[in-house]
């Protein structure tokens, strides 16, 4: 490892322009609060993934490191604001509102490899890309996101979304659009059986299956035909939500809204032609249900090439499925030069963009410390946030963390996480997306 020195920052023209927007505001601040010191290093840093976590880390590290080679591996040119997909599928947002070019957020001075990672040799510190080229690293940031395993539901394929009464907001922006169309078509039928599912694995945005249930219910009620629709919710887990108070609230709300809850039963097969879904219980017994509309949430895991590497958890709750990281320092448990961030890590909760917002400064500080061979100073408290939509037009801003038994961690003291409010809805509808983009730029 080379010698490292701390020095004042050097900023690119683009970064200066962005900050220059707020020249008057910035002038109110002491310079040290705006610009942290940079670290001079020759380290080769590879960031796998250019989504919320990868882009955020690229911006943060580009700002804090000088002389480093920072390479981001990401095949996509467009950035999707995925937290907006439930609003697209609910008919509230136009799909285009969730799209931005990656180039808008990409920092200057980094290398962007537009390709797909295919393998990680943790022992050799080497990444293999789909075109068989390789990248060597001194520090690796695994920010790949996760993999949707629709194939684990017998008979299910993302191609089916939008037809035969099948919706699934997770697969893609186009799938969110097709889910909206499927719900529209179902509502136009004037009645029927609707099934909403949540799988047996950890999932990203764990509130999304619940949000889709509530927004669809909201649309049914708005039509004044609630009695014509039967709604069932199947979850592979024992509860509805990780946060205990919200879990109880949701159970009561579902019961009050006459949505039948089925716990510890996951969607195991689907017959699209017959519009039948098979659910499997923990004891292995199965039950087949007819439906007119079904919202499918697939099982999820780390991407296959991460699962096939030595970076995957070897034991415990995340064994074989998720990245083996310390849930507080976000450093890999066996390879200290590897850090994980975002959906891919093995953590009790945390597969949200809001978690990335909290994780990114921790990973940044700990990478800088690692490069200087210092103890890791930053700890992640498991913060996550779910703007839980309970009706089209109101929501609860549920913020909590995995330390201290999932206690609430509200960002705004004046917004009660236990209350449904218009304010929380307005935050979801108008302010969280700008906050997300500021996070990508490493500003939040």
């Amino acid at each position, binding site marked *: 490892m080379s010698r490292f020195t701390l020095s004042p920052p050097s900023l690119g023209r683009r970064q200066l322009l962005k900050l220059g927007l707020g020249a008057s505001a910035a002038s109110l601040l002491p310079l040290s609060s705006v610009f942290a010191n940079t670290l001079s290093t020759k380290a080769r840093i590879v960031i796998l993934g250019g989504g919320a976590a990868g882009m955020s880390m690229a911006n943060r590290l580009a700002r804090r490191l000088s002389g480093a080679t920072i390479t981001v591996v990401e095949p996509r040119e467009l950035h999707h604001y995925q937290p907006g997909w439930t609003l697209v599928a609910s008919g509230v947002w136009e799909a285009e509102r969730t799209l931005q070019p990656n180039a808008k957020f990409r920092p200057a001075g980094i290398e962007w490899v537009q390709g797909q990672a295919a393998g990680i040799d943790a022992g050799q510190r080497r990444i293999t890309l789909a075109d068989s080229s390789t990248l060597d690293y001194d520090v690796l940031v695994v920010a790949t996101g996760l993999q949707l395993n629709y194939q684990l539901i017998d008979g299910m394929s993302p191609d089916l979304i939008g037809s035969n009464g099948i919706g699934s907001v997770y697969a893609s922006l186009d799938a969110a659009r097709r889910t909206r169309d499927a719900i529209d078509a179902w509502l136009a039928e004037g009645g029927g059986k609707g099934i909403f599912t949540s799988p047996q694995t950890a999932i990203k945005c764990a509130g999304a299956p619940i949000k889709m249930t509530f927004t669809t219910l909201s649309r049914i009620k708005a039509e004044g035909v609630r009695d014509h629709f039967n709604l069932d919710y199947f979850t592979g887990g024992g509860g509805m939500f990780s946060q205990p108070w919200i879990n109880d609230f949701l159970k009561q709300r579902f019961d009050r809204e006459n949505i039948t809850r089925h716990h510890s039963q996951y969607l195991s097969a689907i017959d699209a032609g017959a519009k039948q879904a098979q659910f499997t219980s923990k004891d292995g017994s199965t039950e087949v249900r007819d439906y007119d509309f079904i919202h499918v949430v697939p099982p999820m895991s780390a991407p296959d090439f991460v699962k096939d590497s030595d970076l995957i958890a070897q034991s415990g709750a995340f064994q074989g499925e998720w990245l083996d990281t310390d849930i507080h320092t976000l450093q890999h448990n066996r390879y200290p030069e590897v850090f994980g961030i975002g959906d891919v890590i093995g953590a009790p909760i945390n597969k949200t963009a809001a978690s990335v917002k909290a994780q990114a400064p921790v990973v940044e500080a700990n990478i800088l410390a690692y490069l200087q061979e210092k103890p890791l100073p930053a700890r992640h408290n498991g913060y996550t946030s779910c703007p839980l939509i309970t009706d089209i037009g109101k929501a609860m801003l549920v913020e909590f963390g995995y330390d201290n038994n999932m206690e609430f961690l509200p960002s705004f003291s004046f917004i*009660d996480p236990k209350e449904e409010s218009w304010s929380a809805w307005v935050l979801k509808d108008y302010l969280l*997306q700008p*906050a997300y983009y500021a996070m990508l730029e490493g500003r939040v």
Partner: protein
Amino acid sequence: MTFSLAGIFSVLSNAIQPFLVLILTILAVLVAVQFTARIRSYRTKAHQYMPAMIVALLVGASSVWWLPLLTHSQLAFVTTAIDWLALIAAALGVALLVWLVLHPLSYLIRGPR
């Protein structure tokens, strides 16, 4: 979760961006009417025109109903204290804005009163 001042500024600048044209248009109308009236000797306190005040109050009051609709919501969902505080503040802002345009406009159309 904490936000730095630079972070808050970054969020707000991103939030305003989709509405920039609308905001600039409203500001342009406001500045144009105020400026034109003032170079023709309009003074806020000296000019009396009650209908401008009444219309501004009506628009402000009605905004309590239509502002939630603009946000894909409805008045029935405005329930918490912070909801009402935000809505009333926004309605007052709407009323003030309408008055700041209509009052000098009435001076320009009807002359000094």
